[in-house]
């Protein structure tokens, strides 16, 4: 099977539809000076306030500071102010550029469930080995005290034995 073979139009339309539905694309088009020209898609889905350029757009603009704006850029898995995760792309065009957001929430949740447990186990292991170290210290301290005690007991017993011996022999 060749991958270059064009798909039947019905399949292609179907694919496009489900992929777009899944990706929730939001397209923001800017002129070269970061002035918003047009938007397409659901800004509400990402809870980006595009009516307030001071906040919503600034958040996106901050992502690209100090990056060259003359070539396409992508920043995967960006946690937006709303808490949602998105892949953020910057696509250069003749009159400026577009910022394209694609939903990454599902992929992020999957990544997180995988990593969270591993990280927690590693942190707990560290705690545990420290606790074990401390336990060892405590144990050797107890051991030392027990030995001292035994020594003292032996001494005491010897003393009592001697004393009782003394008392028995007038």
């Amino acid at each position, binding site marked *: 099977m060749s991958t270059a073979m064009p798909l039947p139009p019905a399949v292609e339309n179907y694919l496009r539809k489900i992929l777009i539905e899944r990706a929730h694309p939001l397209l923001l088009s800017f002129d070269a000076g970061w002035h918003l020209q047009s938007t397409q898609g659901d800004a509400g889905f990402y809870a980006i306030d595009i009516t307030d350029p001071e906040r919503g757009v600034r*958040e996106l603009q*901050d*992502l690209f*500071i*100090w*990056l060259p704006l003359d070539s396409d850029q992508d*920043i*995967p*898995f*960006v*946690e937006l102010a709303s808490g949602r*995760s998105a892949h953020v792309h910057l696509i250069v065009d003749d009159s400026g550029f577009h910022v394209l957001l694609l939903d*990454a929430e599902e992929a*992020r949740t999957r*990544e*997180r469930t995988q*990593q*969270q447990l591993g*990280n*927690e186990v*590693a*942190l707990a292991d*560290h705690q545990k080995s420290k606790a074990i170290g401390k336990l060892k210290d405590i144990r050797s301290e107890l051991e030392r005290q027990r030995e001292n005690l035994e020594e003292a007991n032996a001494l005491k017993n010897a003393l009592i034995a001697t004393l009782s011996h003394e008392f028995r022999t007038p």
Partner: protein
Amino acid sequence: MTVQAHKVCMLGDFGVGKTSLVARLVRSTFSEKYLTTIGVKVDSKEVALPGREPLKLVIWDIAGRSALDALGMHYLRGAAALLLVADGMREGSLSSALNLLMQSRSLLPDALVALAVNKLDLVERWEVAPATLAELRRSLPVFETSALSGDGVEAAFADFAARLAS
């Protein structure tokens, strides 16, 4: 006039408190709960400087690892400053932070660097010895911080702001 913005990246092993330090600085909050950061969260904070224009730090809180992968390097591009973060209670996290610094040096040879040794509120349980910190202080600014109490947090970022402004 728009304020000058500079990109600052948080760099350190997972669980050392990078996300918590940013939350303390930007939102004055702290949470006991550990939620692994996936990807990156970008926040910003305007820092006032005595006798100067304020300056904006755009802070990238990057998912913590002991080594940088391709994605980690990708996130670092354009950073003007790196805040290395270690957990005072985990000596190993200090080596991770220094290792991350070495790795990032090829990409960002001129970035400003400082080290935050975090969880100062639990200093009685620290593994990192004062002598180690004294030694490190000879080569880079070291801050002892607590995201829980807020101690040292503003100082660490203010130091970057002051150095970036001059």
